[in-house]
């Protein structure tokens, strides 16, 4: 199903490829059910009509849109700090909807069960209360004060410790997390997921890291993130329905799901229809 013009997804920017993955031959992919081609330069066009699409380069990725996108994309100021290692990892294809992938990215409670002995380990399963707010302009969700006990939070982590997280959802299909940095306690590592919705129920997940790490190679850091996401993939592909249900009675939230609850309400309030199931009227 193609997006409706009322859906803000239609005019949004969407990631379609890492810049350094593009060669001379066009990459054939799909965005919101439309076949498109992307090439270095960059340039993008619809395969079905041949119409040119707008492009921009940011966070190491090429972004495009099927509608009339805003001038700018959301900001991640940390990405421009000179000593950060910026790496793209992915894309990873997932047979699920973009909102399911974003909600999973915001979720802490699954760490001990899905990322066992890396981002969490039984019996340390508690999710302490945290705060979630929608920014004054309504454009972004922010979750702060998130804390979790992790056995191996990052390649630079040395043994188990409590890790602090901040989450941002600046775009219906993009989320950015900030977590304790083990090299410099005054700063935070940044990991982002930018979901390219190929259809309502299939995505390519583009992962971008902006790390303070002077020790590990790019390949090591990329592999670490791919291992983590590879553990999420089978869970996402076994969620039913695949599209995210926005009806409060569709599933059973608990306190730990505060950010997911806010995300679902925000999608409903901003009239996103692609990849979600609205409550029956």
């Amino acid at each position, binding site marked *: 199903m193609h997006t409706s013009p009322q859906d803000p997804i239609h005019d949004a920017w969407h990631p379609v490829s890492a810049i350094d993955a593009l060669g001379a031959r066009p990459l054939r992919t799909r965005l919101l059910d439309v076949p498109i081609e992307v090439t270095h330069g960059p340039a993008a066009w619809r395969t079905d009509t041949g119409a040119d699409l707008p492009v921009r380069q940011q966070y190491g990725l090429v972004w495009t849109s099927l509608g009339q996108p805003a001038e700018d994309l959301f900001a991640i100021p940390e990405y421009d700090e000179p000593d950060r290692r910026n790496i793209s990892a992915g894309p990873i294809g997932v047979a699920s909807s973009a909102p399911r992938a974003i*909600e999973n990215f915001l979720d*802490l*409670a*699954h760490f*001990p*069960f*899905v990322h066992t002995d890396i981002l969490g380990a*039984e*019996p*340390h*399963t*508690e*999710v302490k209360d945290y705060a979630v707010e929608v920014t004054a302009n309504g454009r972004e969700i922010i979750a702060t004060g998130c804390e979790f006990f992790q056995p191996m939070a990052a390649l630079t982590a040395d043994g188990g410790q409590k890790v602090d997280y901040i989450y941002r959802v600046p775009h219906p299909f993009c989320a950015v997390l900030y977590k304790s940095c083990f090299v410099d306690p005054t700063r935070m590592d940044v990991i982002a997921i930018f979901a390219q919705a190929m259809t309502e129920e299939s995505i390519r997940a583009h992962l971008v890291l902006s790390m303070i790490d002077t020790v590990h190679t790019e390949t090591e850091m990329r592999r670490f993130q791919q291992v983590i996401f590879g553990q999420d993939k*089978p*869970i996402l592909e*076994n*969620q*039913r*329905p695949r599209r995210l*249900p926005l*009806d*409060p*009675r*569709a*599933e*059973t*939230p*608990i*306190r*730990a799901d505060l950010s997911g609850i806010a995300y679902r309400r925000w999608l409903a309030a901003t009239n996103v229809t692609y990849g979600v199931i609205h409550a029956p009227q």
Partner: protein
Amino acid sequence: MSMIPSPAWHPIAASTDLVFRHVFHGKLAGQELAVWRADDGNVNVWENRCLHRGVRLSIGMNDGAELKCQYHGWRYANRSASCTYIPAHPANSPARQVTNRTFPVAERHGLVWSALEPDAAFPDLPEGDWFALRAVTIDAPAQTVMGALAEAATSLVPLSPLACRLALREAPGETLIVFTQPLDAGTSVLRALRDGTPADAEPTLRRFNRILSGLRDSIEAVPMPRIGAVEPDFAPVSADLAAVPGPRAAGLSVVVARKWWAAEDVVALELKPLSGTLPAFQPGAHIDVTLPDGTLRQYSLTNGPGEWESWVIGVRRQRQSRGGSRMIAEQVREGDLLAISEPRHKFPLRRDATRTVLIAGGIGITPLLAMAKALHHGGHPFELHAFARSAGHLPFAEGLQAFGDHLHLHLGQDPDETEATVRQFLGPHGFAQHVYVCGSARMIDTVTQAAADLGWPDEAVHYEHFSNDRAIDASSAFTVELARSALTVDVPAGVSLLAAIRDAGVTVPSSCEKGACGTCVVPLLDGVPDHQDVYLNTTEKRAGRAIVTCVSRAQTPRLVLDL
């Protein structure tokens, strides 16, 4: 959907598909099913979806008594399908009864049957010896498969739109009953029973597998229009799961199935439901038992995971009691009916500890027994320290041996010896360590004091009082404002705060009315309370954000409650 007769029972799996501690992924008319056998032999057929975030339960873990979701570790109980534990909030019991959707189940002749409609009548199956053949999946609608069967048979007697008795041309002397299970609108599973178990089971299975696979190939060789999948039915969760729950009324009738002496002066009662199954509960839960004279008494459930058929409680016969325990010990007989409440959770067990210390004084072992069984079943580290006057005074002693090295008995110790023992094994507090104590007020005081001296924080020390032995001072008089009700109520000397609130027409649930069970706790907005209960811990009392209304009063002339 019109292609699929419904409501009706269909075979959905072979008994041999339900492998020990495995979950079978089944499907009927587009509805995905998680099918699993618990260690007690019971087969569960549930909607294949965790109610929390929709993850298939067929990828979950069957531990023999519960199914654990892969995503967040939520645990659902055998039979009741109710959630028993949510690891993200280990200090709370599930506030609401989260219960998965279940489907009816029957097991006959080596096949497992279910129906999407709860009221469908189970078909009349022939008696005798029937041998289940291997299932064959066919990429065709069920009606097409039935038509092809008619062509392949020498004789055929229809039994229902999707079942028939026949003999196949390729095996003319052997009578079969064949069922076509509609997986989806365009996919079916052929399941057959052969009349009589053959002497050569394996060659027979292989021979029929070859014959039925040939039938499948001939059906699939005919080009067919592509048929869309049946849209699965994702039923919404109940309205109370989407809302904040209110207090629930008591409402279970049970029959006393067995009564026996569990120790000197301790009577054990086994309670079975009059109908249906008992609700799921968490270790540490208690029930209110309504006595013949209308009073309520609280008793902890001693059952472990998977022990759902009946509940066992222990009752100590106190010589100078208010009469309640004595009434149960002396007057209640096997076969009597009792009215009890749903399980209440005031003493929840965290399962996120690296060390759990359970300390029982006499009859106080009952909730800890349920905890020990849950920890033992889950492979969590724990110690159970049971104190009793003598071996004969130790309740449920025969079941304790199962805990092996986890069990530590301390018999015949006087108060000073008890205190020294507790201090010695408790030791200093470490990360993710928790202690649970249940017993007499003196036992609880001994443990809480020792724990405080050894540096254990309040939130790591959990206790349950069976009664409040302190004398209640009801001599003060004060005023209470009920903020949400916009009422001001005077509480005169000699009248409890709870009674005064109720006289003003505001409902507050209560149970023990002795300051022990915590049922009547109310949030406190302003004023300094005079805590006289044993329910709130020291930190909670100092914070002054809650008050136990049945016994506590005010130190200031005015209290403001969030009621």
